[in-house]
């Protein structure tokens, strides 16, 4: 039996510490689930184990022998393979399945190779993961689930003792996921140690033998799965503060209709949807990856403009560009913070005042003093932690960057605020602040549209929850009737609960 153990692993990026001394042990023949909310450090830990990142501190041992993984090749040499979440980044779409599966042997093998042997080897490997595909087909013809299995087959082309799977079921259907689980169980029987990253509790409870939960770079739970309750795991994932924070007892008074969307076509998904928001209402939009949440948010803000009008306070408006949206009183906090939400090479003041720069302009020139005073007032109010207001955003932590991305819309004082995964990759403290802003906006009679895949957040403070599936709104739940199960039921197109849990 082989024992792989990581002891007090530390890692930071810039001044952001992601892992603060994490212990993690996995034995061969066991399925060890690694859980945690977004930004807990799961992926970082696994990237260290697979040699992608170098650790800052701590040690990795294999059967008590210390290992040094400087490159992914070192980790592979030691028998550790990783199946990454974005399978497309690990495979070459223009090559055939056979070439992809036998890539490892190709790199280290002889200069000349035999196609016949290669195809045969590929076929053997594909059989092990239960894929009945012609290995000479180009990889680009495979579905996502097939690519995932191809990647596992590729990993099996060496003698492996451990395999890491990062959110493998994120985009799979129930049937595909079930197939994956049976493949994993076979591997387990063959003595492979499996590290399984996920934040879907039901499948973790079903598959794993042990559970480790990470939160903010610490291990908060480490137990055998059989002696764990779901509630215990959720608490460990979210932390007591957040669980309490999420208990929102506030009674909100809803005002007049604010935004009315009727048969609105989202151009990127080519689906239509209808819903409405009232003043002071927080409407959550749930959905799995690929359900069309981001696409809908972008269309409503005019980032990918739709031809259909929406009505805001009873007035019909076609939102053809973000500028139009802003002048109609809409603010948008996009999902990809660093790419879309903020400008990392500009300072806090410049980021905050960008949508309202006109207010600080006289005869075309910026009144920098006034701009700065106003921005500093907001920095204080929003609790953005920065040494000085002229620091580039690049040097701020993710949470403070996000506060800036939200803050710039508060300066604008609009009516409708669209949030797309606003708590992605930020710590609990920043999350508390984000929730505080949102509740305050609702108190000030603003309408809020909150897109997220974090069901706990939806249940906590949304007045109404719309659930998206396949680009459409599959269901609507009021605060009182919403439960995780019901949301998941709609979010999986009605499959969840009947088959998997």
């Amino acid at each position: 039996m082989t024992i792989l153990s990581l002891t007090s692993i530390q890692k930071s990026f810039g001044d952001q510490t992601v892992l603060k001394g994490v212990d993690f042990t996995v034995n061969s023949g066991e399925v060890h689930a690694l859980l945690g909310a977004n930004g807990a450090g799961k992926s970082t830990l696994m990237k260290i184990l697979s040699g992608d990142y170098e650790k800052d501190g701590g040690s990795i041992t294999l059967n008590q022998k210390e290992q040094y993984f400087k490159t992914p090749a070192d980790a592979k040499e030691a028998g550790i393979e990783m199946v990454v979440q974005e399978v497309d980044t690990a495979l070459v779409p223009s090559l055939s399945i056979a070439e992809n599966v036998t890539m490892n042997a190709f790199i280290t093998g002889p200069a000349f190779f035999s196609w016949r042997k290669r195809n045969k080897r590929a076929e053997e490997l594909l059989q092990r993961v239960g894929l009945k595909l012609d290995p000479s087909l180009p990889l680009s013809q495979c579905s996502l689930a097939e690519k995932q299995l191809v990647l596992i087959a590729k990993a099996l082309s060496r003698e492996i003792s451990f395999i890491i799977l990062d959110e493998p079921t994120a985009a799979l259907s129930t049937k595909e996921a079930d197939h994956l689980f049976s493949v994993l169980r076979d591997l387990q029987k063959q003595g492979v140690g499996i590290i399984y990253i996920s934040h879907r509790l039901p499948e973790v409870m079903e598959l794993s033998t042990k559970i480790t939960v990470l939160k903010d770079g610490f291990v908060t739970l480490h137990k055998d799965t059989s002696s764990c309750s779901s509630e215990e795991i959720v608490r460990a994932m979210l932390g007591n503060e957040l669980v309490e924070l999420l208990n929102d007892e506030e009674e909100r008074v809803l005002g007049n209709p604010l935004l009315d969307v009727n048969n609105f076509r989202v151009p990127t998904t080519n689906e239509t949807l209808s819903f409405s928001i009232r003043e002071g209402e927080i409407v959550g939009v749930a959905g799995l990856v690929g359900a069309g949440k981001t696409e809908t948010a972008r269309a409503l803000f005019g980032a990918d403009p739709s031809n259909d009008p929406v009505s805001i306070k009873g007035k019909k408006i076609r939102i053809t560009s973000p500028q139009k949206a802003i002048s109609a009183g809409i603010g948008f906090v996009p999902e990809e913070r660093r790419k879309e939400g903020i400008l990392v090479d500009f300072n806090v003041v410049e980021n905050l005042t960008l949508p309202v720069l006109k207010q600080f302009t006289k005869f075309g020139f910026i009144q920098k003093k006034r701009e700065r005073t106003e921005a500093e007032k907001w920095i204080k109010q929003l609790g953005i932690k920065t040494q000085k207001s002229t620091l580039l955003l690049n040097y701020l932590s993710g949470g403070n960057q996000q506060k800036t991305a939200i803050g710039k819309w508060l300066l604008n004082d609009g009516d409708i605020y669209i949030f797309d995964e606003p708590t992605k990759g930020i710590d609990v403290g920043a999350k508390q602040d984000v929730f505080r802003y949102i509740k305050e906006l609702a108190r000030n009679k603003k309408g809020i549209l909150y897109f997220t895949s974090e069901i706990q957040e939806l249940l906590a403070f949304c007045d109404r929850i719309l659930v998206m599936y396949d680009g459409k709104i599959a269901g609507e739940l009021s605060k009182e009737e919403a439960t995780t199960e019901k949301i998941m039921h709609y979010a999986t197109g009605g499959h969840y609960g009947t088959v998997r849990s």
Partner: protein
Amino acid sequence: MAQYVHKEQIEKENNRTKYTFQEKVFPFLYRYGTLIVILLTVIGFSLANDKFLSYQNFTDILRSVSIITLLAIGVTISLIVGGFDLSVGSTASLATVTSAASLVLYRQETIIAILIPIIIGLLVGLLNSFFVVKVRLPDLLATLAVMYIINGLHLTFTKGFSIYNNMPLTEGGTAPGVFLPSFLFIGQGEIISVPVPVIIMLIAVIVVHIILQQSRFGRLLYITGGNEEAARLSGVPVQRYKMYAYLLSAFFATLAGILLAARIGTGQVSAGAPLLMDGVAAAFIGFSVFGAGKPNVIGTFVGAVLIGILLNGLTMLNVPYYAQDIVKGSILIGALAFMYYDKKK
């Protein structure tokens, strides 16, 4: 709370590590490296040749720098919005030829000989922005294509000949017009013994600098280049700002072309081509001045001065012009190396 824990750790680490020699020297060089190089070259050349450090030579250098600077301002503005205008050289050539043709072939007044190239130049800018903004070609490729088109256009117009006073015409006789003294004044005149092109250059540098640093227009140009998608989602009309940038870029290239025509007194074909590379080099050297790390006009000006000093000094030392490119290239590499070294950290 998590975020405080790591803050203390970082502070502890900061106290622990003393800055190494390298960590101290590199940022200093990054900020002032270009200025030090200028100082050293000035000292070097004045030691090697006693005529180097004279007022006459000083104005000569600035006069030759003025055209490159104007062109480089155009390149700088295109770089600010995240683009790259390669067509400035040929736009300058076109301006040289059209202003000369207005004067010599069509007997126009000075003001017409200035306005016509500017209008044509702005059309080139529109063409560039059409390809970049509407057709969405990569900036480098679009402006490269436009560079070829404009080059061919001005050569076709002149049939490959330069335009000069009393030039013989194909249909017999000589050209009706001449380079008017008032036009030549732009390139050759002096006001209180300061050359006019230098005055124009300094005004352009100062005005553009103030606009870029202090105005909303300038801020939004930089924001557009900083992250186009984030800018768009914050309500910046990024496409319009990109168009403005290419229009300005063409405008300054045209200005450089007019100055060139006025200075040499002929409508030299392809005169702008060698200016392109000097202009691009000046703009990129400008990145490193005062450690700006981004395109800026003052830096561009310093870059152009550095190139001007090198050319002047090397010519005085009888280094052949083709060998001077080696020096130019090395300076550019040096400036870029410092910039990217710092960016990587």
